[in-house]
């Protein structure tokens, strides 16, 4: 099963996707057995695993290159600074941003969104203004805007979704008013896998003269993202969901907007000069990087991005599409299984419930068979409410997963179904 012929999004038949050499790069996949069973790690939406190349980069950095950046005149500080700034350029290329100063290192997507809510929102959104999000959002793309609305007396407007878990685009556009000041939408819905039409959403926002932020936490590991082609104003993703370390996130912002924004946090590195009377802020992106940043994590993230670029995001998308199709078919064939989220355009995320069995029971029993899935509300309670469930089990696939692991999942789900029948 390891080599599948693939249809890429551009329609070209690429070389077969050979998953075994890729799996060999991820030591944890071979090292770990659960209850004596091989691990089927299907919780990539929560956090992905690291290839040896990324682990090696962390070790090499800590072994030979570490010092604090942007301040020392000594050899190690210069080495670390060069590697950190090279990582910024790698991220710039990964997103196809125009300039490296449009890339801000944060600690995760939550941090990136809060940065924009404070830096842009608090400066430019006031009483009676409106912010548009969708019903698909992760709490991280709801709560910062709610907090801003509460503080400023602004209003949050939520674009509804249909029964397949897709944003109803006519309703989305209807939400725009002369008071709309900002739009923030997810690229891929974490609980359901829906891929939002973010290019079209950006066009609509811009037609109304409103900037748009895209939460790419669940997107960049599944598909190529080009921020210039999207023309979005902000884009955020996190390191640990794209085979890099925890503790590092990215905020892309158009330079003109970043320059207009207030700093988020005050401290070292984000200043040009400080007296007790006045502080002059540093230029972008440093204005937003107060304090010592996640240096080793940013450097290793660059290695992770090089890794996925090397495999090819078009090939990854095509292979994962096969995994998703097979998993959807396999679970649909099991009595009482309900799949939640059946959008036309989906990333390799599969939310499901087994009859009335609580997802936590499902998750515990799947774990007995070595299958790791996420269970719960996925930090997306409005999505759960929309589908009338308290929680779901969610299998989320990466390009190192296999059709055999899908079989392992399906066999385990069958066992749960029988146990509770």
């Amino acid at each position: 099963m390891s080599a599948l012929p693939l249809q890429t999004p551009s329609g070209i038949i690429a070389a077969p996707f050979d998953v075994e050499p890729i799996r060999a790069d991820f030591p944890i996949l071979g090292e770990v057995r659960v209850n004596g069973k091989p691990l089927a790690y299907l919780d990539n939406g929560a956090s992905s695993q690291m290839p040896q190349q990324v682990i090696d980069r962390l070790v090499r950095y800590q072994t030979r290159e570490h010092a604090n950046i942007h301040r020392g005149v000594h050899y190690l500080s210069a080495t670390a600074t060069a590697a950190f700034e090279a990582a910024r350029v790698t991220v710039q290329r990964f997103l196809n941003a125009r300039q490296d100063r449009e890339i801000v290192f944060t600690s995760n997507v939550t941090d990136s969104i809060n940065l924009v809510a404070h830096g842009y929102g608090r400066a430019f959104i006031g009483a009676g203004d409106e912010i548009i999000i969708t019903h698909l959002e992760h709490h991280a793309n709801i709560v910062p805007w709610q907090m801003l609305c509460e503080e400023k007396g602004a209003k949050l407007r939520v674009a509804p979704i249909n029964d397949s878990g897709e944003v109803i685009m006519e309703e989305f556009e209807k939400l725009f008013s002369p008071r709309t000041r900002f739009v923030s939408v997810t690229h891929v819905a974490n609980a359901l896998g829906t891929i939002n039409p973010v290019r079209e959403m950006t066009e609509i926002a811009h037609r109304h003269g409103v900037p748009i932020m895209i939460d790419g936490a669940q997107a960049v590991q599944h598909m190529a993202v080009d921020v210039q082609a999207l023309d979005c104003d902000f884009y955020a993703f996190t390191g640990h969901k794209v085979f890099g370390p925890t503790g590092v996130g990215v905020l892309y912002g158009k330079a003109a907007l970043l320059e207009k924004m207030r700093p988020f946090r005050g401290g070292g590195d984000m200043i040009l000069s400080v007296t007790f009377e006045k502080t002059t802020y540093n230029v972008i992106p440093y204005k937003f990087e107060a304090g010592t940043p996640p240096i080793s994590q940013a450097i290793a993230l660059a290695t992770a991005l090089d890794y996925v670029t090397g495999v090819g995001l078009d090939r990854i998308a095509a292979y994962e599409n096969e995994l998703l199709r097979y998993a959807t078919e396999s679970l649909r064939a099991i009595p009482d299984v309900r799949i939640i989220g059946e959008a036309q355009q989906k990333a390799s995320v599969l939310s499901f419930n087994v009859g009335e069995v609580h997802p936590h029971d499902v998750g515990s029993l799947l774990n007995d068979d070595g299958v790791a899935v996420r269970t719960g509300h996925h930090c997306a309670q409005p999505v759960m409410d929309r589908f009338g469930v308290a929680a779901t089990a969610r299998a989320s696939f990466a390009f190192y997963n296999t059709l055999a692991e899908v079989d392992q999942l399906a066999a385990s789900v069958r066992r749960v179904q029988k146990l509770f029948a």
Partner: protein
Amino acid sequence: MDSTQLYQEIILDHNKKPRNWGKVEGCTHKSEGLNPLCGDHIWVTLKVVDDAIENVAFEGKSCAICKASASMMTTAVKGKKLAEADALVQEFREMATGKLDVGQGTHHLGRLTVFAGVKDLPARVKCAILPWHTLHAAFAQEATISTEGANDPFANA
């Protein structure tokens, strides 16, 4: 441990056919229990006469571990004196957190020892304990308890 060992016949049976499901008419004590991380949400109502539990019931939405634990709890405490029931709450909690070895020493857990294995499933301990926390809160006349944060009655235990 393998959680399949926990999902024994008796637990699956109480999950499917929970005993004492619903509300006690004219209850003297009631409490709501919530486990925000997994969404277990139950209500326990009691009628206490002369310091004894004349009747007890529960309802709500929860996983099988929580529901079976609640169901078996109601059958275990019905008719008991409040002090006896509260002692059982302590014993159950100590068993679920691994502080009481049910094979050793004296205890009053009886069939409730089917939940002993939960101590090896850290993510599920709270599911099993929630009904007991809720019962304890009802004795103390606390309206709502939560297994997270400031309302967790055993947070620092």
